[in-house]
């Protein structure tokens, strides 16, 4: 068992890259769930963002505009979910699942003419002085800008939820929507905005897959990443910093098992490929989900 040729630096760098899509989707979903809505349509929003981002990037030649379009695309799809669940009061779980399937099919339709195309490259942080710092340089300071955007987003969400008034209002809507409504806060409006933010972030995560990580467009390319993101939110006990921990842990174990396989490590491959999911289940069992927002998943109907 020769672990010496696993290049630890390259490994950690690729962990950050592999974890970013689920990190983006999870942080968006965290905001949605904090507002008391359970949106199971993350997978659909991710893949919609993937194709919108890809299509706009290819058409305009700019990956930045692509990411912007992905955010808008994901938000637009989640707006459908928002209208259905907040205005028309449909069941959130069922609507979310329907949204996933719709997103997958819709993106396949839009993406039909984009198979086989290559997107423009995304700029990397490439300051030689920073990259030359041993260890920290290649691991942390040599990524494309979306990795840094994702980390900034987590920090921003944390600050917003913890220290701002609007964040407090959002949390109160999630904890007890009847009380929030009684206090005069517009529950439906706040939830719709939260849902759109969550959809936009999931779209960014999907676009990261189609523009940077793979990078090409194929139908169904998210391959279940949205579900992992949903699990990550619970894993993180709805705390923003723990989402980073969960995403990097999951991404890390996934990448590690691939590297261990290439290293001919003597653990059967089937066990190795189970490890990311086992790890997630283990942590979910150890950390019970007692931090869930109290009103999550419940339909809000203004009684007065």
């Amino acid at each position, binding site marked *: 068992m020769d672990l010496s040729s696993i290049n630890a630096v390259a490994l950690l760098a690729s962990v950050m890259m592999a974890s970013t899509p689920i990190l983006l989707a999870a942080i968006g979903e965290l905001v949605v769930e904090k507002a008391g809505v359970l949106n199971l349509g993350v997978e659909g929003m991710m893949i919609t963002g993937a194709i919108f981002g890809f299509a706009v990037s290819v058409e305009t030649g700019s990956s930045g505009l692509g990411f912007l379009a992905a955010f808008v695309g994901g938000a637009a799809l989640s707006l459908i979910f928002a209208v259905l669940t907040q205005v028309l009061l449909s069941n959130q779980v069922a609507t979310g699942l329907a949204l996933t399937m719709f997103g997958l099919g819709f993106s396949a339709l839009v993406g039909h003419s984009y198979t086989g195309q*290559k997107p423009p490259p995304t700029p990397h942080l490439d300051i030689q002085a920073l990259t030359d710092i041993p260890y920290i340089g290649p691991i942390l300071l040599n990524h494309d800008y979306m990795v840094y955007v994702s980390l900034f987003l987590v920090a921003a969400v944390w600050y917003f939820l913890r220290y701002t008034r609007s964040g407090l209002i959002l949390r109160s809507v999630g904890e007890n929507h009847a009380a929030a409504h009684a206090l005069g806060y517009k529950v439906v409006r706040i939830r719709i905005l939260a849902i759109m933010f969550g959809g936009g972030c999931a779209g960014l995560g999907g676009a990261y897959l189609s523009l940077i*990580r793979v990078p090409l467009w*194929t139908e169904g390319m*998210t391959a279940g990443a949205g579900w992992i993101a949903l699990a990550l939110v619970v894993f993180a006990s709805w705390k923003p910093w723990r989402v980073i921990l969960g995403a990097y842990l999951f991404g890390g174990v996934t990448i590690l098992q691939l590297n261990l396989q290439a290293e001919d490590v003597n653990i*059967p491959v*089937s066990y190795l490929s189970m490890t990311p999911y086992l790890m997630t289940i283990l942590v979910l069992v150890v950390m019970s989900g007692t931090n869930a927002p109290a009103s999550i998943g419940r339909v809000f109907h203004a009684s007065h």
Partner: protein
Amino acid sequence: MRLMKTILTGAALAVGLSGAANAEKLKVGFVYVGPVGDLGWTHEHDQGRLAVEAALGDKVETSYVESVPEGADAERVMTQMALAGTKLIFTTSFGYMDPTINVAAKFPDVKFEHATGYKRSDNVSTYSARFYEGRTVIGHIAGSMTKTNTIGYIASFPIPEVVRGINSAYLAAKAVNPDVKFKVIWVFTWFDPGKEADAANALIEQGADIIMQHTDSPAAMTIAEEKGIYAFGQASDMMQFGPNARLSSIIDNWGPYYVARTKAVLDGTWSSTDTWDGIAPGMVQIGAFSDKVPADVQASAQALADGLAAGTIHSFTGPIKKQDGSPWLAAGEIADDGTLAGMSFYVEGIEGDLPN
């Protein structure tokens, strides 16, 4: 009123006539395991379907269902096709084997063609391509061109077809480069661009400078292009994903076989057969060599391909031992189809264990 009657009669006649005309067309259905847009495995099957339409368009009507999961869903789709009057159904993935047999038993007048399987019945044929012959050629090119002596292989499931591919590529590479090493990553999926990209990255980090794959998407080729290393197109040419990276490719050419089988159903000469064609009948095509391949390697690879087509060279010719050292083929002995069809061992020299 008179005008009305005339119009209605005319319409009824038109419908009746077109109905009669349609009733003569043979309905051919295709069940795909991935999306037509995968530009890999399923794409080539669809090209085969289009070839059938081009050759026999006035006599057949084709339809397809894509991204059908292997298992109960596949049975449902096949049953639906049979109930809709489809008389010839191509099921294009190994995992459709049992569903095909089950549905075939329920519809004895519908003919089934199952790709890469081994179970047959009166109305089920199997067909596959000797992809491993293609692997011999690309293994030869890879062995000749690798600078780091490490070749990365992205494998899907440990079924005999995949193991054959690894073995034949390795044998061909080792024949020109005794120091070559293969690193194999099992991704347990036929189609997952994200995972394939991650596996390609992991292999590159481990020092591979040429990537081979037995998965269906062009993700690995795209990563190879990005990282400036070489790769081979799998099932489809994949030139547009790797203009610099792509050295050559193995192209599955199902068109001629599909047209022949459809004609057999139209003529009434169809019977259950097992077809395993390789380079010779044109089912396996080697993609054009890119100009990154040196002229002498191109020549020797072409000679290899020609030899395989002519039957003078065989991918598995002894002396070959199994990975555990036990003897398999004596000097000059050629592997028989039976052993190849059930191959579940690595040949000597490949490191690592086969997953179960």
